Protein backbone atom coordinates (compact mmCIF):
# COMPACT_ATOMS: atom_id res chain seq x y z
CA UNK A 1 0.00 0.00 0.00
CA UNK A 2 2.64 2.44 1.12
CA UNK A 3 4.90 1.29 -1.67
CA UNK A 4 2.16 1.91 -4.17
CA UNK A 5 1.71 5.43 -2.93
CA UNK A 6 5.44 6.00 -3.08
CA UNK A 7 5.37 4.76 -6.65
CA UNK A 8 2.71 7.28 -7.52
CA UNK A 9 4.69 10.11 -5.95
CA UNK A 10 7.79 9.00 -7.84
CA UNK A 11 5.78 9.06 -11.06
CA UNK A 12 4.44 12.57 -10.39
CA UNK A 13 7.86 13.71 -9.20
CA UNK A 14 9.58 12.74 -12.43
CA UNK A 15 6.92 14.57 -14.44
CA UNK A 16 7.30 17.75 -12.39
CA UNK A 17 11.07 17.46 -12.64
CA UNK A 18 10.75 17.20 -16.41
CA UNK A 19 8.70 20.42 -16.46
CA UNK A 20 11.30 22.17 -14.30
CA UNK A 21 14.17 21.02 -16.50
CA UNK A 22 12.29 22.42 -19.45
CA UNK A 23 12.32 25.85 -17.76
CA UNK A 24 16.01 25.85 -16.90
CA UNK A 25 17.89 27.70 -19.64
CA UNK A 26 21.19 26.50 -21.03
CA UNK A 27 24.10 28.76 -21.87
CA UNK A 28 23.62 30.66 -25.12
CA UNK A 29 25.75 28.39 -27.26
CA UNK A 30 24.03 25.21 -26.12
CA UNK A 31 20.53 26.62 -26.36
CA UNK A 32 19.49 24.85 -29.62
CA UNK A 33 20.69 21.55 -28.16
CA UNK A 34 18.19 21.51 -25.36
CA UNK A 35 16.04 18.38 -25.56
CA UNK A 36 12.31 18.42 -24.91
CA UNK A 37 12.38 16.81 -21.46
CA UNK A 38 8.64 16.34 -20.84
CA UNK A 39 8.39 14.28 -24.03
CA UNK A 40 11.27 12.00 -23.00
CA UNK A 41 9.91 11.34 -19.50
CA UNK A 42 6.37 10.83 -20.75
CA UNK A 43 7.68 8.41 -23.37
CA UNK A 44 9.50 6.44 -20.70
CA UNK A 45 6.40 6.14 -18.58
CA UNK A 46 4.14 5.27 -21.46
CA UNK A 47 6.46 2.40 -22.37
CA UNK A 48 7.06 1.16 -18.85
CA UNK A 49 3.77 1.83 -17.15
CA UNK A 50 1.20 2.06 -19.89
CA UNK A 51 -1.82 1.88 -17.64
CA UNK A 52 -0.86 5.05 -15.79
CA UNK A 53 -0.23 7.16 -18.86
CA UNK A 54 -3.39 8.06 -20.69
CA UNK A 55 -4.18 10.66 -23.30
CA UNK A 56 -5.85 12.72 -20.57
CA UNK A 57 -2.66 12.76 -18.54
CA UNK A 58 -0.61 13.80 -21.56
CA UNK A 59 -3.09 16.57 -22.30
CA UNK A 60 -3.02 17.82 -18.70
CA UNK A 61 0.74 17.76 -18.59
CA UNK A 62 0.85 19.65 -21.88
CA UNK A 63 -1.47 22.30 -20.49
CA UNK A 64 0.73 22.63 -17.40
CA UNK A 65 3.78 22.97 -19.63
CA UNK A 66 1.99 25.61 -21.68
CA UNK A 67 1.13 27.59 -18.58
CA UNK A 68 4.76 27.55 -17.48
CA UNK A 69 6.58 28.21 -20.72
CA UNK A 70 4.44 28.61 -23.67
CA UNK A 71 3.74 30.71 -26.60
CA UNK A 72 0.20 29.47 -27.13
CA UNK A 73 -2.12 27.71 -24.69
CA UNK A 74 -2.80 24.19 -25.94
CA UNK A 75 0.28 23.94 -28.13
CA UNK A 76 2.21 21.49 -25.98
CA UNK A 77 -1.02 19.76 -25.00
CA UNK A 78 -1.54 18.96 -28.66
CA UNK A 79 2.02 17.78 -29.16
CA UNK A 80 2.20 15.59 -26.08
CA UNK A 81 -1.20 14.03 -26.75
CA UNK A 82 -0.15 13.09 -30.27
CA UNK A 83 3.20 11.77 -29.02
CA UNK A 84 1.70 9.64 -26.26
CA UNK A 85 -0.99 8.34 -28.59
CA UNK A 86 1.59 6.99 -31.03
CA UNK A 87 3.75 5.61 -28.22
CA UNK A 88 0.82 3.80 -26.61
CA UNK A 89 -0.37 2.50 -29.96
CA UNK A 90 2.95 0.81 -30.65
CA UNK A 91 3.81 0.19 -27.02
CA UNK A 92 4.03 -3.58 -27.16
CA UNK A 93 6.37 -3.36 -30.11
CA UNK A 94 8.53 -0.54 -28.83
CA UNK A 95 9.09 -2.20 -25.47
CA UNK A 96 10.78 -5.22 -26.98
CA UNK A 97 12.87 -3.38 -29.52
CA UNK A 98 16.61 -3.50 -28.91
CA UNK A 99 17.90 -0.20 -27.62
CA UNK A 100 19.24 1.17 -30.88
CA UNK A 101 15.94 0.48 -32.61
CA UNK A 102 14.04 2.07 -29.78
CA UNK A 103 16.28 5.12 -30.06
CA UNK A 104 15.48 5.43 -33.75
CA UNK A 105 11.77 5.19 -32.95
CA UNK A 106 12.15 7.93 -30.33
CA UNK A 107 13.99 10.06 -32.87
CA UNK A 108 11.09 9.65 -35.30
CA UNK A 109 8.62 10.60 -32.58
CA UNK A 110 10.59 13.67 -31.56
CA UNK A 111 11.06 14.85 -35.14
CA UNK A 112 7.35 14.40 -35.69
CA UNK A 113 6.80 16.50 -32.57
CA UNK A 114 9.01 19.27 -33.91
CA UNK A 115 7.15 19.24 -37.21
CA UNK A 116 3.85 19.61 -35.34
CA UNK A 117 5.30 22.51 -33.37
CA UNK A 118 6.56 24.22 -36.50
CA UNK A 119 3.16 23.88 -38.15
CA UNK A 120 1.42 25.35 -35.11
CA UNK A 121 3.86 28.26 -34.87
CA UNK A 122 3.65 29.05 -38.56
CA UNK A 123 -0.13 29.01 -38.38
CA UNK A 124 0.05 31.33 -35.40
CA UNK A 125 1.98 33.79 -37.57
CA UNK A 126 5.61 33.23 -36.53
CA UNK A 127 8.45 33.24 -39.03
CA UNK A 128 10.03 29.92 -40.01
CA UNK A 129 12.62 28.95 -37.40
CA UNK A 130 16.36 28.82 -38.19
CA UNK A 131 18.10 25.56 -39.10
CA UNK A 132 19.39 24.98 -35.57
CA UNK A 133 15.77 24.45 -34.61
CA UNK A 134 16.02 20.85 -35.88
CA UNK A 135 18.99 19.83 -33.70
CA UNK A 136 16.96 19.33 -30.54
CA UNK A 137 15.17 16.05 -31.53
CA UNK A 138 18.53 14.46 -32.35
CA UNK A 139 19.95 15.43 -28.98
CA UNK A 140 16.80 14.07 -27.36
CA UNK A 141 17.16 10.76 -29.19
CA UNK A 142 20.86 10.55 -28.32
CA UNK A 143 19.99 11.05 -24.67
CA UNK A 144 17.16 8.52 -24.75
CA UNK A 145 19.17 5.40 -23.81
CA UNK A 146 20.63 7.21 -20.80
CA UNK A 147 17.29 8.62 -19.68
CA UNK A 148 15.72 5.21 -20.07
CA UNK A 149 18.44 3.33 -18.21
CA UNK A 150 18.67 5.94 -15.46
CA UNK A 151 14.95 6.03 -14.79
CA UNK A 152 14.75 2.23 -15.00
CA UNK A 153 17.66 1.80 -12.64
CA UNK A 154 16.26 4.24 -10.11
CA UNK A 155 12.90 2.52 -10.28
CA UNK A 156 14.47 -0.89 -9.70
CA UNK A 157 16.50 0.38 -6.79
CA UNK A 158 13.48 1.94 -5.16
CA UNK A 159 11.53 -1.25 -5.97
CA UNK A 160 8.68 0.71 -7.40
CA UNK A 161 6.40 -0.51 -10.06
Amino acid at each position, binding site marked *: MNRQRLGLWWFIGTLVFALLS*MLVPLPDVLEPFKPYWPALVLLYWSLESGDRVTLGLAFTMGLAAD*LLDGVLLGEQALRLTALVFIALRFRSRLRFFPMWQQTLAVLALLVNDRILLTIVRVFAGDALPPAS*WWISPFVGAALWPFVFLLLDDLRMRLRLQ
Partner: protein
Amino acid sequence: MGQESSPLFAGSTGTLRLIGYLALAMVLMVLDHRNGWMWRIRYGAAVAVEPLYRLAGLPVEGMRTLSVAFADRQRLTVQNQRLREDLLLANAKLNRMAAVAQQNEHLKELLDTQRSLELNVQLARVVGVDLGAYRHRLLLNVGAHDGVKPGQPVIDARGVMGQVIQTLPTTSVVMLITDPNNALPVTVERTGLRTIAYGSRDGDRLVLPTIPMAADVKEGDRLLTSGLGGRFPPGFPVGEVTRVAPATTGMFLEAQAQPTAEINRSEDVLLLHDQAEPAGPPPPVTPAGPPSDLAPAGAGQPAAVPAPKGKP
Protein backbone atom coordinates in the same frame (compact mmCIF):
# COMPACT_ATOMS: atom_id res chain seq x y z
CA MET B 1 -10.22 -1.87 -37.51
CA GLY B 2 -8.45 -5.19 -37.81
CA GLN B 3 -5.51 -3.69 -36.00
CA GLU B 4 -7.47 -3.05 -32.85
CA SER B 5 -7.90 -6.75 -32.15
CA SER B 6 -4.34 -7.73 -32.98
CA PRO B 7 -2.19 -8.11 -29.85
CA LEU B 8 0.56 -6.07 -31.44
CA PHE B 9 -1.59 -2.98 -31.36
CA ALA B 10 -3.31 -3.62 -28.06
CA GLY B 11 -3.55 -0.47 -26.03
CA SER B 12 -5.91 1.56 -23.95
CA THR B 13 -6.12 4.36 -26.44
CA GLY B 14 -8.99 5.10 -28.73
CA THR B 15 -8.68 7.09 -31.89
CA LEU B 16 -11.88 8.87 -30.99
CA ARG B 17 -10.43 10.13 -27.74
CA LEU B 18 -7.31 11.28 -29.56
CA ILE B 19 -9.42 13.27 -31.99
CA GLY B 20 -11.36 14.72 -29.08
CA TYR B 21 -8.24 15.89 -27.26
CA LEU B 22 -6.64 17.25 -30.42
CA ALA B 23 -9.78 19.19 -31.23
CA LEU B 24 -9.87 20.56 -27.69
CA ALA B 25 -6.22 21.62 -27.96
CA MET B 26 -6.91 23.37 -31.26
CA VAL B 27 -9.92 25.20 -29.83
CA LEU B 28 -7.75 26.34 -26.92
CA MET B 29 -5.03 27.53 -29.30
CA VAL B 30 -7.45 29.53 -31.42
CA LEU B 31 -9.10 31.07 -28.36
CA ASP B 32 -5.73 31.93 -26.87
CA HIS B 33 -4.48 33.39 -30.13
CA ARG B 34 -7.53 35.60 -30.37
CA ASN B 35 -8.02 36.61 -26.74
CA GLY B 36 -4.76 35.93 -24.89
CA TRP B 37 -6.32 33.45 -22.50
CA MET B 38 -3.08 31.95 -21.39
CA TRP B 39 -2.00 35.10 -19.65
CA ARG B 40 -5.22 35.46 -17.76
CA ILE B 41 -5.01 31.86 -16.59
CA ARG B 42 -1.34 32.29 -15.82
CA TYR B 43 -2.13 35.37 -13.78
CA GLY B 44 -4.81 33.41 -11.94
CA ALA B 45 -2.46 30.50 -11.33
CA ALA B 46 0.40 32.78 -10.33
CA VAL B 47 0.49 31.26 -6.84
CA ALA B 48 1.60 27.98 -8.39
CA VAL B 49 3.46 29.32 -11.41
CA GLU B 50 5.75 31.90 -9.83
CA PRO B 51 7.40 29.61 -7.23
CA LEU B 52 8.16 27.22 -10.07
CA TYR B 53 9.79 30.06 -12.00
CA ARG B 54 11.90 30.94 -8.98
CA LEU B 55 12.80 27.28 -8.54
CA ALA B 56 13.78 26.91 -12.19
CA GLY B 57 15.78 30.13 -11.97
CA LEU B 58 17.89 28.71 -9.13
CA PRO B 59 20.49 26.92 -11.29
CA VAL B 60 21.31 30.11 -13.17
CA GLU B 61 21.36 32.07 -9.94
CA GLY B 62 23.67 29.42 -8.49
CA MET B 63 25.96 29.64 -11.49
CA ARG B 64 26.22 33.40 -11.06
CA THR B 65 27.02 33.04 -7.38
CA LEU B 66 29.56 30.33 -8.11
CA SER B 67 31.23 32.37 -10.83
CA VAL B 68 31.66 35.20 -8.33
CA ALA B 69 32.79 32.87 -5.55
CA PHE B 70 35.37 31.12 -7.68
CA ALA B 71 36.48 34.08 -9.73
CA ASP B 72 40.10 34.68 -8.97
CA ARG B 73 41.28 37.81 -7.30
CA GLN B 74 43.03 38.95 -10.43
CA ARG B 75 39.86 39.03 -12.49
CA LEU B 76 37.84 40.77 -9.80
CA THR B 77 40.54 43.40 -9.44
CA VAL B 78 40.56 44.02 -13.16
CA GLN B 79 36.78 44.24 -13.21
CA ASN B 80 36.77 46.59 -10.25
CA GLN B 81 39.35 48.78 -11.92
CA ARG B 82 37.33 48.88 -15.12
CA LEU B 83 34.13 49.76 -13.27
CA ARG B 84 35.92 52.55 -11.42
CA GLU B 85 37.20 53.98 -14.68
CA ASP B 86 33.73 53.77 -16.17
CA LEU B 87 32.27 55.53 -13.17
CA LEU B 88 34.89 58.27 -13.34
CA LEU B 89 34.23 58.78 -17.01
CA ALA B 90 30.47 58.76 -16.51
CA ASN B 91 30.72 61.24 -13.66
CA ALA B 92 32.92 63.54 -15.68
CA LYS B 93 30.46 63.40 -18.54
CA LEU B 94 27.58 64.00 -16.16
CA ASN B 95 29.23 67.05 -14.68
CA ARG B 96 29.72 68.50 -18.11
CA MET B 97 26.16 67.57 -19.04
CA ALA B 98 24.71 69.18 -15.94
CA ALA B 99 25.34 72.65 -17.26
CA VAL B 100 23.90 71.74 -20.64
CA ALA B 101 20.89 70.10 -19.00
CA GLN B 102 20.24 73.17 -16.93
CA GLN B 103 20.44 75.35 -19.97
CA ASN B 104 18.14 72.95 -21.77
CA GLU B 105 15.62 73.09 -18.90
CA HIS B 106 15.73 76.83 -19.02
CA LEU B 107 15.16 76.98 -22.76
CA LYS B 108 12.35 74.48 -22.47
CA GLU B 109 10.72 76.51 -19.77
CA LEU B 110 10.84 79.43 -22.15
CA LEU B 111 9.29 77.26 -24.84
CA ASP B 112 6.76 76.02 -22.31
CA THR B 113 7.21 72.29 -22.93
CA GLN B 114 6.79 69.68 -20.25
CA ARG B 115 9.31 67.09 -21.34
CA SER B 116 12.13 66.69 -18.83
CA LEU B 117 15.44 64.89 -18.89
CA GLU B 118 14.85 63.29 -15.50
CA LEU B 119 14.68 59.51 -15.51
CA ASN B 120 12.31 57.70 -13.23
CA VAL B 121 13.60 54.15 -13.15
CA GLN B 122 13.27 50.93 -11.22
CA LEU B 123 15.99 48.34 -10.95
CA ALA B 124 15.03 44.76 -11.84
CA ARG B 125 16.88 41.47 -11.96
CA VAL B 126 16.62 38.90 -14.72
CA VAL B 127 15.34 35.50 -13.59
CA GLY B 128 17.07 32.79 -15.62
CA VAL B 129 14.10 30.94 -17.07
CA ASP B 130 13.58 29.69 -20.59
CA LEU B 131 10.20 30.88 -21.76
CA GLY B 132 10.13 28.79 -24.88
CA ALA B 133 10.17 31.49 -27.51
CA TYR B 134 13.66 30.99 -28.90
CA ARG B 135 15.15 33.33 -26.28
CA HIS B 136 13.23 36.42 -27.26
CA ARG B 137 11.61 36.86 -23.90
CA LEU B 138 13.05 37.64 -20.50
CA LEU B 139 11.54 37.16 -17.07
CA LEU B 140 12.12 39.94 -14.51
CA ASN B 141 11.76 39.64 -10.76
CA VAL B 142 9.38 42.57 -10.40
CA GLY B 143 5.71 42.49 -11.25
CA ALA B 144 2.32 44.12 -10.92
CA HIS B 145 2.73 44.44 -7.14
CA ASP B 146 5.81 46.58 -7.70
CA GLY B 147 3.93 48.87 -10.04
CA VAL B 148 5.11 47.40 -13.32
CA LYS B 149 2.71 47.86 -16.20
CA PRO B 150 2.70 46.33 -19.68
CA GLY B 151 4.29 48.66 -22.21
CA GLN B 152 7.08 49.95 -19.98
CA PRO B 153 10.44 50.24 -21.75
CA VAL B 154 13.34 48.18 -20.39
CA ILE B 155 16.92 49.41 -20.80
CA ASP B 156 20.35 48.44 -19.60
CA ALA B 157 23.45 50.55 -19.22
CA ARG B 158 24.13 50.50 -22.96
CA GLY B 159 20.77 50.81 -24.63
CA VAL B 160 17.20 49.72 -25.14
CA MET B 161 16.46 46.06 -24.43
CA GLY B 162 12.74 45.75 -24.96
CA GLN B 163 9.38 46.35 -23.38
CA VAL B 164 7.24 44.67 -20.74
CA ILE B 165 4.47 42.70 -22.42
CA GLN B 166 2.88 40.84 -19.53
CA THR B 167 2.91 41.14 -15.79
CA LEU B 168 2.27 38.55 -13.09
CA PRO B 169 1.96 39.62 -9.43
CA THR B 170 5.69 39.45 -8.72
CA THR B 171 7.29 38.75 -12.10
CA SER B 172 6.95 40.23 -15.54
CA VAL B 173 7.83 39.19 -19.07
CA VAL B 174 9.84 41.39 -21.42
CA MET B 175 9.76 41.16 -25.20
CA LEU B 176 13.25 41.90 -26.47
CA ILE B 177 13.84 44.23 -29.40
CA THR B 178 15.34 41.26 -31.27
CA ASP B 179 11.99 39.42 -31.26
CA PRO B 180 10.70 39.20 -34.86
CA ASN B 181 7.32 40.44 -33.61
CA ASN B 182 8.83 43.62 -32.26
CA ALA B 183 9.06 46.86 -34.20
CA LEU B 184 10.83 49.89 -32.84
CA PRO B 185 10.78 53.39 -34.37
CA VAL B 186 14.36 54.58 -34.61
CA THR B 187 16.29 57.46 -36.04
CA VAL B 188 19.79 57.44 -37.49
CA GLU B 189 21.87 59.66 -35.25
CA ARG B 190 24.08 61.10 -37.98
CA THR B 191 21.40 62.09 -40.47
CA GLY B 192 18.18 62.13 -38.49
CA LEU B 193 16.56 59.68 -40.90
CA ARG B 194 13.55 58.01 -39.30
CA THR B 195 12.81 54.36 -39.92
CA ILE B 196 11.68 51.21 -38.14
CA ALA B 197 13.86 48.43 -36.70
CA TYR B 198 12.44 44.93 -36.53
CA GLY B 199 13.81 41.89 -34.74
CA SER B 200 15.50 39.39 -37.01
CA ARG B 201 14.45 35.81 -37.57
CA ASP B 202 17.53 34.25 -36.05
CA GLY B 203 17.22 36.46 -33.09
CA ASP B 204 20.31 38.40 -32.17
CA ARG B 205 20.21 41.27 -34.62
CA LEU B 206 17.94 44.06 -35.81
CA VAL B 207 16.75 44.49 -39.36
CA LEU B 208 15.75 47.77 -40.97
CA PRO B 209 14.06 46.67 -44.19
CA THR B 210 12.48 49.94 -45.32
CA ILE B 211 15.19 52.54 -45.86
CA PRO B 212 14.66 54.65 -48.99
CA MET B 213 17.16 53.91 -51.78
CA ALA B 214 18.51 57.44 -51.79
CA ALA B 215 18.98 57.64 -48.04
CA ASP B 216 22.41 58.10 -46.55
CA VAL B 217 23.02 55.16 -44.19
CA LYS B 218 26.47 53.73 -43.60
CA GLU B 219 28.05 50.99 -41.58
CA GLY B 220 28.77 52.20 -38.09
CA ASP B 221 25.83 54.60 -37.92
CA ARG B 222 24.26 54.70 -34.50
CA LEU B 223 20.52 54.23 -34.11
CA LEU B 224 18.52 56.02 -31.44
CA THR B 225 14.89 55.66 -30.42
CA SER B 226 12.88 58.30 -32.23
CA GLY B 227 10.07 58.51 -29.73
CA LEU B 228 7.44 58.11 -32.41
CA GLY B 229 4.68 55.77 -31.37
CA GLY B 230 4.87 56.90 -27.79
CA ARG B 231 6.29 53.73 -26.24
CA PHE B 232 9.95 54.57 -25.92
CA PRO B 233 11.24 57.99 -24.95
CA PRO B 234 13.40 59.56 -27.68
CA GLY B 235 17.17 59.54 -27.66
CA PHE B 236 18.09 56.14 -26.21
CA PRO B 237 20.76 54.16 -28.08
CA VAL B 238 19.35 51.12 -29.87
CA GLY B 239 22.04 49.68 -32.10
CA GLU B 240 24.80 50.15 -34.59
CA VAL B 241 24.42 49.48 -38.31
CA THR B 242 26.62 46.58 -39.39
CA ARG B 243 25.61 46.06 -43.00
CA VAL B 244 23.66 47.92 -45.68
CA ALA B 245 22.52 46.27 -48.90
CA PRO B 246 19.65 46.64 -51.37
CA ALA B 247 16.63 44.64 -50.24
CA THR B 248 15.54 41.66 -52.33
CA THR B 249 12.52 43.60 -53.55
CA GLY B 250 14.84 46.21 -55.03
CA MET B 251 12.69 49.04 -53.76
CA PHE B 252 14.42 49.74 -50.47
CA LEU B 253 17.77 49.48 -48.78
CA GLU B 254 17.94 46.91 -46.04
CA ALA B 255 20.27 47.44 -43.11
CA GLN B 256 21.23 45.14 -40.31
CA ALA B 257 22.16 46.41 -36.89
CA GLN B 258 23.70 45.03 -33.75
CA PRO B 259 21.86 45.99 -30.56
CA THR B 260 23.98 48.07 -28.20
CA ALA B 261 22.31 46.58 -25.13
CA GLU B 262 23.83 43.34 -23.89
CA ILE B 263 20.67 41.48 -24.77
CA ASN B 264 21.67 38.00 -23.65
CA ARG B 265 24.13 38.86 -20.92
CA SER B 266 22.48 41.50 -18.77
CA GLU B 267 21.61 40.45 -15.24
CA ASP B 268 20.34 43.78 -14.00
CA VAL B 269 18.09 45.99 -16.07
CA LEU B 270 16.23 49.25 -15.60
CA LEU B 271 12.52 49.74 -16.07
CA LEU B 272 11.54 53.23 -17.19
CA HIS B 273 8.57 54.50 -15.29
CA ASP B 274 7.43 57.61 -17.02
CA GLN B 275 6.13 56.60 -20.40
CA ALA B 276 7.04 58.82 -23.28
CA GLU B 277 4.49 61.28 -24.46
CA PRO B 278 3.12 60.21 -27.80
CA ALA B 279 4.77 62.36 -30.42
CA GLY B 280 2.51 61.25 -33.24
CA PRO B 281 -0.35 63.16 -34.76
CA PRO B 282 -2.81 64.57 -32.23
CA PRO B 283 -5.97 62.55 -31.54
CA PRO B 284 -8.86 63.40 -33.87
CA VAL B 285 -10.92 66.28 -32.53
CA THR B 286 -14.53 65.53 -31.83
CA PRO B 287 -16.49 67.75 -34.19
CA ALA B 288 -17.83 70.74 -32.34
CA GLY B 289 -21.36 71.74 -33.01
CA PRO B 290 -24.71 72.18 -31.36
CA PRO B 291 -25.69 69.30 -29.03
CA SER B 292 -27.47 66.52 -30.85
CA ASP B 293 -30.69 67.00 -28.88
CA LEU B 294 -31.00 70.48 -30.28
CA ALA B 295 -30.68 69.27 -33.85
CA PRO B 296 -33.89 69.29 -35.87
CA ALA B 297 -35.33 65.90 -36.56
CA GLY B 298 -33.73 64.29 -39.58
CA ALA B 299 -30.72 66.63 -39.67
CA GLY B 300 -28.36 63.78 -38.88
CA GLN B 301 -29.34 61.92 -42.01
CA PRO B 302 -26.78 61.74 -44.81
CA ALA B 303 -29.00 63.58 -47.30
CA ALA B 304 -28.79 66.74 -45.25
CA VAL B 305 -25.03 66.77 -44.83
CA PRO B 306 -23.62 67.65 -48.31
CA ALA B 307 -25.44 70.95 -48.60
CA PRO B 308 -22.97 73.20 -46.69
CA LYS B 309 -19.99 71.37 -48.23
CA GLY B 310 -20.92 72.43 -51.73
CA LYS B 311 -20.06 76.05 -51.12
CA PRO B 312 -16.74 77.09 -52.63
